[in-house]
């Protein structure tokens, strides 16, 4: 493969036709997969599922505005993690891992969002939507 001499950074950013074709294929594949996943997990009431490794520890509905927050402590490989589920979504309030990436990632509320503490093997996934839950109450 020969490197083409580039005049400036803008020329390099354009890429070749094969690069652009590859980008198009990649984006179409990713967006299609994303839409399929969203249609699968956005149905139903808003729920937060908490896993430790392969085990589903608990599944809680995400509280609506004005409802009390849910606070719980789950035991991971390294120690206990404190989890808060409130009207803003779910978050890990404290964890025994050294990096604290899971704590710093904050609250997540959208269907498909995940919060993972890899060293402690704790995973929180969010599915469903608040609108779906409201519909269910009307019924």
């Amino acid at each position: 493969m020969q490197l083409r001499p580039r005049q400036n950074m803008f020329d390099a950013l354009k890429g070749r036709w094969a690069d652009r074709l590859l980008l198009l294929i990649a984006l179409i594949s990713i967006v299609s997969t994303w839409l399929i996943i969203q249609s699968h997990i956005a149905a139903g009431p808003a729920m937060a599922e908490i896993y430790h490794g392969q085990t589903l520890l608990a599944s809680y509905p995400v509280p609506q505005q004005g409802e009390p927050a849910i606070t719980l402590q789950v035991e991971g490989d390294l120690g206990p993690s404190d989890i808060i589920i409130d009207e803003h979504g779910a978050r890990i309030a404290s964890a025994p891992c050294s990096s604290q990436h899971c704590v710093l990632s904050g609250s997540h509320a959208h269907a498909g969002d995940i919060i993972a503490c890899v060293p402690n093997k704790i995973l929180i996934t969010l599915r469903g939507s608040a609108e779906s839950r409201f519909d269910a109450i009307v019924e």
Partner: protein
Amino acid sequence: MRLLNNEHSPAISMTALARPPLPELKTKARWLALLMLAIGLHVFEASLPSLGPWFKPGLANLVTLIALAMMGTRAAVSLSIARIIVGSFFIGTLFTPTFIIAMAGGLSATIVMVLAWRWIPGLSLVGISLLGALAHMLAQFVTVEALFIQQATLYYALPPLLILSCISGWINGALAEYICARLAHERI
């Protein structure tokens, strides 16, 4: 390099040192310079505020791509492995889950870039970098799912991160193409 004993003199003669040829020394020096740069970028990226869970701009991978384009497959693979080991040592994650995930991502990206460089005609460094960035992100998720959190629900978060990988891979590839062309022009 080998030291030769001089039977007529008890002291080791400095002139008896078998010196490697200059082109070999230049190649080693260039590889080491790229390694230092890659380690510096690895540490710099670790100190950046998180742009999202598991997402980094992949600047250290840019150096692997430059090594691949300028020095070949062996230099790129060895640079990638050395960068992750030494870089993880400096940021304090050596032999932790973070290290395993980084090694899986970095090695997968390098292998995919090497294969694309050799076997896919028409792609520039931009396309090769794009494939490397996607392989890096996919390998990270597969490693976490296989070794740490055995939940398929983990993959729910993958598509938006793959889109970010496309953007960072494209920009890094353009940077690599520009830098390689400049270095070739300057004959460094």
